[in-house]
């Protein structure tokens, strides 16, 4: 039978639609196929399970649904920030094999860099920016350059993904255009430079100072890191972090000592509170929802996504392969003509940037900086999260952070019920005890953690 033309066309169209429908249904499932897919599945299930449990825990006796949402948003923020910490450690240890026990020093230094700029220059500098046109131009230029610099790698990845066969010239133009656009958008975000915007700008400068300081520290760490054996390096980095912490505590004129730095200007919460559209959006979701918390979560999640995409691309690139070769046997990589020290240094610096950003987010969460926040304990928790989630796999840190830094502290808080039985002071230590036991048990019975890769394991098989 010969069908008329239009009918044939309709049939073909229907077939195409049907196949599109099928592929749309299969797409989400396809994500979970293959090895990567199974790893994603494990991570997603872990995170969902943790948050379901937390919702049940927080929902028990809660006043309103909004309160539960706020509670969960806070936990998700915690997870994002600590995943970012873990991501930095993953690059340094999981991929480059650098045993860094002074991780928190990067986060602390970045936060303190920002805090010190605000404490000593803050309001005054903002006022002079507001008044002085030349200064305004310099600040806006600085903002534009920062935004362009941060957007370049992602723009490059995107172009490569979308137009892999395009000419190099086209790719270059596209990346430069994207960077310029990002710079322009950033500048627009800061215009006009009124009181709040100029304070935002000062905070941004502070963040750059902080990240710069963390990167500088990474260079310092690299001096022993590229020469020393793993266990020596662990001792040295631990000691350096301790030294920095005693610096925060003792140089009261600079850091405020144990009283810390209070009342940081907070660009995220200030914008969330002053932006009517955002307020309206959050209110539409749930009237009890806190606009600031959601904004912070959004920022942290975006930054986590940014660094995840960046690091994942790096790890898959030839650069990442060299890094892993060095981790397995630096003598062989060196004999093949790779500059071992340089690769280690690069991994250390890139990892420290993620950690520095996490440190800044920790400070912005409460708009305060205390020395006690940036202590050895946080380094150790991040290590536990890394090992539980799985070494050498960037996905693992999210699952690890969900278990070790979200679920564990919240469950430990419920130990407070024991206090009525006369057992005092059990919440914090209980959490630490559980984390320590978890670390030991995982190392003994499942050294690749949740989604770590056995064949890349650094712990012997």
């Amino acid at each position, binding site marked *: 039978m010969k069908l008329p033309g239009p009918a044939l066309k309709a049939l073909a169209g229907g077939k195409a639609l049907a196949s599109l429908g099928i592929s749309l249904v299969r797409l989400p499932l396809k994500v979970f196929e293959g090895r990567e897919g199974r790893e994603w599945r494990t991570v997603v299930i872990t995170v969902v399970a943790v948050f379901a449990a937390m919702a049940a825990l927080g929902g028990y006796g809660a006043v309103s649904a909004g309160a539960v949402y706020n509670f969960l948003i806070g936990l998700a923020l915690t997870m994002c920030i600590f995943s970012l910490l873990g991501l930095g450690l993953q690059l340094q240890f999981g991929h480059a094999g650098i045993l860094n026990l002074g991780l928190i020093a990067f986060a602390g230094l970045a936060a303190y860099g920002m805090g010190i700029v605000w404490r000593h220059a803050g309001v005054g500098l903002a006022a002079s920016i507001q008044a002085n046109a030349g200064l305004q131009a310099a600040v806006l230029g600085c903002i534009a350059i920062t935004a362009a610099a941060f957007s370049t790698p992602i723009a490059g990845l995107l172009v490569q993904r979308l137009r892999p066969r395009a000419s190099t010239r086209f790719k270059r133009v596209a990346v430069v255009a994207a960077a310029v656009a990002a710079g322009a958008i950033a500048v627009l975000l800061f215009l006009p430079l009124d009181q709040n915007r100029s304070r935002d700008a000062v905070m941004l400068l502070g963040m750059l100072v902080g990240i710069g300081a963390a990167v500088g520290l990474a260079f310092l760490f690299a001096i022993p890191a590229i020469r020393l054996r793993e266990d020596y390096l662990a001792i040295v980095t631990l*000691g350096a972090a301790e030294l920095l912490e005693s610096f925060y505590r003792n140089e009261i004129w600079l850091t405020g000592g144990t009283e810390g730095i209070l009342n940081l200007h907070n660009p995220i919460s200030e914008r969330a509170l002053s932006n009517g559209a955002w307020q309206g959006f959050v209110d539409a979701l749930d009237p009890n929802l806190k606009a600031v918390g959601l904004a912070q979560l959004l920022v942290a999640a975006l930054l986590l996504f940014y660094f995840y995409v960046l690091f994942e691309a790096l790890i898959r690139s030839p650069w990442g392969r060299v890094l892993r070769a060095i981790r397995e046997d630096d003598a062989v990589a060196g004999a093949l003509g790779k500059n071992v020290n340089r690769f280690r240094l690069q991994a250390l610096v890139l990892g420290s940037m993620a950690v520095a950003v996490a440190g800044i987010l920790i400070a912005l969460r409460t708009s305060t900086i205390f020395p006690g926040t940036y202590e050895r304990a946080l380094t150790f928790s991040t290590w536990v999260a890394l090992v539980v989630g799985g070494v050498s796999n960037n996905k693992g840190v999210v699952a690890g952070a969900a278990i070790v830094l979200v679920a564990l502290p919240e469950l430990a808080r419920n130990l407070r019920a024991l206090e009525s039985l006369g057992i005092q002071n059990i919440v914090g230590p209980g959490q630490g005890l559980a984390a320590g036991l978890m670390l030991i048990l995982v190392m003994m019975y499942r050294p690749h953690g949740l989604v770590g890769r056995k064949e890349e394991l650094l712990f012997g098989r």
Partner: protein
Amino acid sequence: MNGLVLGSILALAGIGLSLVYGILKLANFAHGDFVTLGAFLAFLFAVVLGGSLEAFGLTVGGGLIALLVVDMFWLHRLVWGERLLLVALGAPLAVVAAVLSLSGRGGSGTTDLMLVEAALLSVVASIGVALAFERLVWRPIRRKKGTVLTLVIVSIGVSLVLRNAIQIAFGTGNRSFERPTTVSPNVLGVQISTAQQAAFVATALIIVGAHLFLARTRTGKAMRAMADNLELARISGVDVDREVTHVWVLAAGLTAVTGVFLTLVANNVMNINMGVGLILPLFAAVILGGIGSPYGAVAGGFLVGIATKTASLWIGSRYEVAAALAVLIAMLLVRPQGLFGGRAA
């Protein structure tokens, strides 16, 4: 003088750390927490349980019996030479007791005799804890041929467990042996407290004891052989697992003693961070002396102790840790095998 006291404390704890590091290739980050554990266990026995001497005698007797039971069923074939090790650890403490009771006699609070008994009990209990970890954690990991990385990370886990367990049991605040404060006597024009004198004398005695033990006994020789070359020692008929147990006994016993003395020289005050703060100078001492070399650890301990206290005259006591760190980094970069020809392992 403060430098000498800190040095003797570092030397005491350093011997064990050095042996463990050298023999097990384990950079034991939990070593500092064992020092804390020793102090708090002594506190437990002296202040919490130390109501009367009779009860005390009973606990001592019970502890010794428990130790003998552990001997028979757990450690297997513990020969007399090895039991002597325990006595060797205890004997200097008895001498200290004599020294202490001759000098400042207190009215109320923990008496010197009680303190010595508590320290002994703490040594025994610390050894028990260390052996439990050896049996449950370290030995299985050795069997699986864990790498240096595994060992370091697991030791962090052990450190977390110990530290938090101590916190749950004793709280985060300061604890004290509740001894009366005494006026420090003058020795050659310098005020030196009896506790400092005791720490110094005891360290000297324990070091001599450790020397005799390492140089003369079969176990000591085996330990040094293992630190030099584990495989060669194994081929020569050294029962590695058993000797490792002895290393832990020695290390844990010495950390317990260190904990007690550290508390005594700090005006009887102990807290959860006392041992952790020692970690960096301890590693500096051990690496300075050469990993696996107990004599090196003693020398390194005194050198680091004196260097730290001397440096604190210039840079202030807040940054004492900087001196140890500087020594450590300089050593690692220039001469990682240690001053006395230990091994870069």
